[in-house]
């Protein structure tokens, strides 16, 4: 745990350095696309009071000056599988964004979508020595959390305190300076596969970039696609990506749970390709251009020409498929994905949430008719979410498939407190002896 603490702190340092320099890149390495956007931090004061722009949770302090999306290769289920190809794609995306921005980017915040996330809720409790809560007490309480066995080679991606309680008062978001005897904390820890995380670090390093933070794609998508009330009252964000469908639960503006279903939009394309015997490119085109989930009578008559290109292995035959066939292939697979999401939500205890809002986002959420299907499977409160608009983002990047990117930009500008943002308690630090000697000296003389 200690190495990870140091690593995360180093990344926080890098992030701070990037903010001081004013330029930070957000890199979303997905299964189907790699997006890089370059943020420029101008600091507060860009807008005047009279412009009618408030602080907006840190959004007004940055703008997007470069953005580039390229097809992703070498990624499966949100994990890097072929390093060289992924690296190539990342270089392409970063170079494109740099070119548009006109500045060199050194620091990068990356998302990781797959890598078998696992959520843990930890609880810790300490007695307050000074009669009120100080910053050290918070750190000590966080350190006092009982850490379960995460399993072999798991890395902690997020460790966010979600709830504080002083004596009997629970639900505090900032317990500092509150008077009491005992401080209890609930912490949400998200762990991912260590090898996947190392691969991501390796990939970024091979592109001569410095990693200034890693965020879960599901968490980032939730921050971008959920409106503030939904985050406060409780909602689930379903980020339907190409290889992985991420699920995150939010309550009181904190992520309580995150998981991923290892199915996504690419699986639908594969089904179409196999079912209609068309190349993958054609299948992708069919899915995005003509896809749907609710068949009507008209769809039987709507024939789609899928004749391959002449210079390919064309056997002289013209082929058409009806849209009903296409829908017939897509619907079961999407249902399966949503079933997986429902299972995850059941495990997470979504039924006990006060507001059972489900927000679908991500690239696969653009299938027409998905909200109707999802309503039947996930419950009545379903909507398709688009990411928040941020300053300078191009039109093509406001689509739902870039929710994680936008969310990570928000996360970069205004990060949530994590465990490693607090000073490690002295008992765990290396300079124990010196501090203890100093304290003894001060107390006794």
């Amino acid at each position, binding site marked *: 745990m200690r190495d990870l603490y140091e690593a995360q702190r180093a990344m926080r340092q890098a992030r701070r350095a990037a903010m001081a320099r004013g330029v930070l890149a957000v890199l979303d390495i997905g299964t189907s696309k790699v997006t890089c956007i370059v943020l420029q931090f101008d600091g507060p004061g860009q807008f005047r009071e009279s412009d009618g722009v408030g602080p907006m949770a840190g959004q007004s302090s940055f703008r997007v000056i470069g953005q580039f999306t*390229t*097809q992703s*290769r070498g990624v499966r289920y949100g994990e890097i599988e072929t390093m060289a*190809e992924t690296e*190539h*794609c990342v*270089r*392409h995306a*970063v*170079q494109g964004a*740099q*070119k548009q921005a*006109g*500045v*060199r980017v050194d620091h990068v915040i990356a998302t990781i979508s797959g890598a078998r996330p696992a959520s843990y809720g930890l609880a810790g409790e300490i007695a307050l020595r000074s009669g009120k809560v100080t910053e050290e007490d918070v750190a000590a309480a966080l350190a006092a959390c009982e850490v379960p066995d995460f399993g072999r080679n798991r890395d902690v991606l997020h460790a966010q305190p979600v709830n504080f309680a002083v004596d009997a008062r629970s639900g505090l978001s900032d317990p500092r300076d509150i008077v009491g005897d005992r401080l209890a904390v609930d912490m949400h820890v998200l762990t991912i596969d260590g090898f996947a995380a190392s691969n991501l670090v390796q990939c970024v390093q091979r*592109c*001569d970039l410095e990693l200034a933070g890693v965020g879960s794609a599901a968490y980032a998508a939730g921050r971008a696609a959920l409106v503030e009330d939904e985050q406060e009252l409780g909602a689930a964000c379903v980020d339907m990506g190409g290889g992985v469908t991420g699920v995150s639960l939010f309550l009181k503006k904190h992520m309580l749970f995150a998981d991923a279903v290892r199915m996504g939009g690419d699986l639908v394309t594969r089904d179409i390709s196999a079912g209609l015997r068309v190349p993958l490119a054609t299948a992708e085109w069919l899915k995005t251009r003509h896809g749907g989930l609710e068949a009507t009578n008209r769809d039987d008559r709507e024939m789609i020409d899928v004749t391959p290109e002449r*210079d390919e*292995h064309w056997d002289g035959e013209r082929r058409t498929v009806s849209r009903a066939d296409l829908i017939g292939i897509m619907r079961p697979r999407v249902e399966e994905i949503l079933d997986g999401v429902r299972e995850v939500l059941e495990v997470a205890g979504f039924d006990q949430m006060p507001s059972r809002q489900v927000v679908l986002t991500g690239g696969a959420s653009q299938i027409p008719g998905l909200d109707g299907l999802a309503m039947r499977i996930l419950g009545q409160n379903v909507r398709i979410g688009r990411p928040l608009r941020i300053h300078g983002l191009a039109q093509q990047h406001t689509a739902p498939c870039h929710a994680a990117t936008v969310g990570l930009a928000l996360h970069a500008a205004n990060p949530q407190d994590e465990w490693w943002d607090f000073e490690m308690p002295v008992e765990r630090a290396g300079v124990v002896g010196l501090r203890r000697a100093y304290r003894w000296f001060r107390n006794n003389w």
Partner: protein
Amino acid sequence: MSGLKHLTAAFSAAAPPAPARRPGARPPPAARTARREPGPSRLAYRLNRLWLTPFYRRLLRIGLPLLLVAAVTGLWLSDETRRANLTGGVAALVENIQSREAFMVRKMEIEGASPAVDRALRAMLPVNLPASSFDIELRDLRQAVERLDAIEKVEFRIRPGGILSAVVVEREPAILWRHARGLDLLDAQGHRVASVTSREVRRDLPLIAGEGAARHTGEALALIDAAGPILPRLRGLERVGERRWDVVLDRGQRIMLPTERPLPALRRALAMDREDALLARDVTVIDLRDPSRPVLRMGLAAQNTLRRAAGLPEIDADGNLIEPEEGGAKTAAAGNAARRGG
């Protein structure tokens, strides 16, 4: 069924069967060129990032062209002949422009100078006319000319038509100064104008004498102005001890003025002269060095007159008593000397 048969027959009649194709005769599919993966190579990526770094960007955009230009120039100039050609060409060009008709100076006109100064000025010109105006540095020339004692101010100007005009203001001699090294003419500010051989050259000018007198010419002139009634008798002023003035009159008379405020003291002496005709009497020195206590030194005749009236023996020019008896004269002389010292 029969209709179908008929149709088939019609088809077979209309379209001849496709020619049998040898197996393997099918044209091979055109070899597709492998699609290049988009995205930069590692080298291109690194170069691009380098290019986006401001330092390298500046280095390449400014430093490299500068280096190239410097290298080319250096290489070209490394040859002795080329360097000589270049400097020669430039010098020729400059010479060509400077020696144009429009820049030539042919004549020198001098205004307000006496013949001697005129000759000196013409001799001081550094070049022989006609010359280019670029070769005549007017400021340096002016400074050199103004170093001459006889010239107070000079203005040079090159007028159209190639005329170098000089307007000279000469120093006006106001006073004569006799000192240990000779006799000088000074202007009103005490600046030397010229040397003269004798007083007779300028009888019209007043005379001052003594070391350091030149530095107080203004005071001397004011004193001479104030000496109106005795001006015909005035021989000159003498600076004593570089400190104060003596007014020297004929008949060996002298007015000793104080260091401070000599002018009122002189006026006082003149007033005494007007009241009592002091200077017409036998008075050698009017000593006004202490303005509150004027002292007169009388001549020998006056002293003897007084002594005769008092019944005392007369004295000669050396202050010795003239006595019928020698011994008495000796004691009187000793007593007189003691009284003087007191």
